[in-house]
């Protein structure tokens, strides 16, 4: 059953593309280390360093939550986001505009949707790999307290999917390397203000609503709640939001790619 599914064109096409990327990463796997290194540095400087000053985070249900426990899941969600989105923005831009990789792939039986699904599947794998290694580092710091933390893995998969698809939609609008500055102009403030480093409670209510609309905020909720051991409806909301966000992005990306890649 699984064997025939694997061989059906709907799966085999995207799988061939994942395989291509895997072969390339056999040569350049060390690039992934940089992506894991970054959140580890943040964890050390913010979580451990500033955490020593802050102590416990006020305004949360459980007053015993240390600052580093609070920051780690935020960084984990961010790592999943960056791991996936770097792949579908920077790397795919190179393949679209510089290397013309897809021109030769689309001359084979593969279709544009196979390419799109394959790239998103790959970015999802990559985002998850980054999260798992970073998660292991977090666990090694002794920051995992609850069995709910097992929900982090499917959560990271969902975050990676949502941002991989969003990245794929974004990359179709990019005209030159300079345009990546505009992407940074959105991503950096989102990273800083989407409750990565402090709880939502510090904002006035109107600002809170705006922050709650951000996909990174929902991603952080999805990871933070289970890792702090408080799982409520918020997790369900976040999962629903990200699923919808990812699917809508995917649909847009497919439509845009059809226009970009069909000569």
């Amino acid at each position, binding site marked *: 059953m699984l064997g025939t599914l694997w061989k059906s064109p709907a799966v085999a096409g995207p799988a061939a593309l994942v395989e291509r990327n895997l*072969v390339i990463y056999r040569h350049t796997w060390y690039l992934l280390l940089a992506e894991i290194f970054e959140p580890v540095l943040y964890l050390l400087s913010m979580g451990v360093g500033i955490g020593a000053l802050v102590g416990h985070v006020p305004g949360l249900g459980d007053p015993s939550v240390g600052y580093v426990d609070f920051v780690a899941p935020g960084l984990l969600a961010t790592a999943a986001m960056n791991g996936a989105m770097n792949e579908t923005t920077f790397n795919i831009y190179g393949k679209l505009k510089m290397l013309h990789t897809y021109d*030769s*792939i689309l001359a084979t*039986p593969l279709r544009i949707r196979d390419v799109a699904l394959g790239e998103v599947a790959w970015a999802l794998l990559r985002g998850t790999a980054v999260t798992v290694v970073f998660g292991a580092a977090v666990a090694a710091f002794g920051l995992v307290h609850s069995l709910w933390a097992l929900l982090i893995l499917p959560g990271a998969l969902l975050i990676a999917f949502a941002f991989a698809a969003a990245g794929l939609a974004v990359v179709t609008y990019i005209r030159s390397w300079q345009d990546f500055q505009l992407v940074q102009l959105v991503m950096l403030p989102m990273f800083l203000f989407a409750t990565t480093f402090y709880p939502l409670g510090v904002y006035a209510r109107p600002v809170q609503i705006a922050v709650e609309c951000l996909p990174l905020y929902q991603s952080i909720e999805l990871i933070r709640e289970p890792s702090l051991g408080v799982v409520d409806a918020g997790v369900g909301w976040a999962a629903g939001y990200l699923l919808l966000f990812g699917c809508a992005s995917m649909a847009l990306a497919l439509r845009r790619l059809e226009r970009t890649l069909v000569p």
Partner: protein
Amino acid sequence: MADVLIEAKGLRKVHAPRGGGAPTEAVAGIDFTVTAGEAFGFLGPNGAGKSTTMRMVAAVSPISGGRLSILGMDPATHGPQIRARLGSVPQDDTLDTELTVRENLLVYGRYFGLPRAVIRERAAQLLEFARLEDKADEQVEALSGGMRRRLTIARSLVNQPDILLLDEPTTGLDPQARHLLWERLFRLKQQGVTLLLTTHYMDEAEQLCDRIVVMDHGRIVAEGSPRQLITTHCTREVLELRFPADLQAQAAEKVAGIGDRLEALPDRLLVYADDGEDALAAVHRTGAEPLTALVRRAGLEDVFLTLTGRTLVD
């Protein structure tokens, strides 16, 4: 009657520019058929619509009008099935530069859903065919232009295609690399692979093609074997005369009327005549004194010049 593999009737391609503007007709209604085992060439200058036609035949670019059947299938509905049986060599090499030579073949074969063991075996044969055995484990970046071209061709053969499409296969290569490539393509032809190629080199078309269509401004202006085209549209020989630049116009007036036809190019005069030596004697009798005079057999370049009044490569 041999099998018809490709049939085009009134085939058109219109490009609508992004963000408005008048649409341009890259291919303006062409008819052609390609039969099994044939080497079929599109000859024409840049912008004639050759590459656009190739992309439609490759089932990559949708047609705008007319009818196109490839291997008995409609590319609009059976794109993947058609592409499974085609090999495609695009104008610019689109090899995976992050992969080694062998990996390029292995990965590409997977796009056709071939089992890994089958691809490994074929890759070894193809590396030998492309004379790249020594380079198998090197990065593509280390290859010369000619080697890359051969690898691109090897890659396009990984699915053992019925038809091989080559878009300007030797553009930008040095003469040695071109000859090696022609020899390899000739070998494929002998193995029964149907070749469809575009070129703006007349020598390439003469070397490789059984049948040629000459394209200009999106239309077919002539069709036939290289020999047929020359005998139909040209004299047997051509006399090339060079004069000092400032005297060429004057000399052209003097020699007008000699041979069948006179063509004035920026740097030389071409006199079309069945007997070039006779024509040269006639030129001398007019008192014109060319710097150099050369009698040669007429070629496809002359056919193109006769049909369009322009040379193939500007």
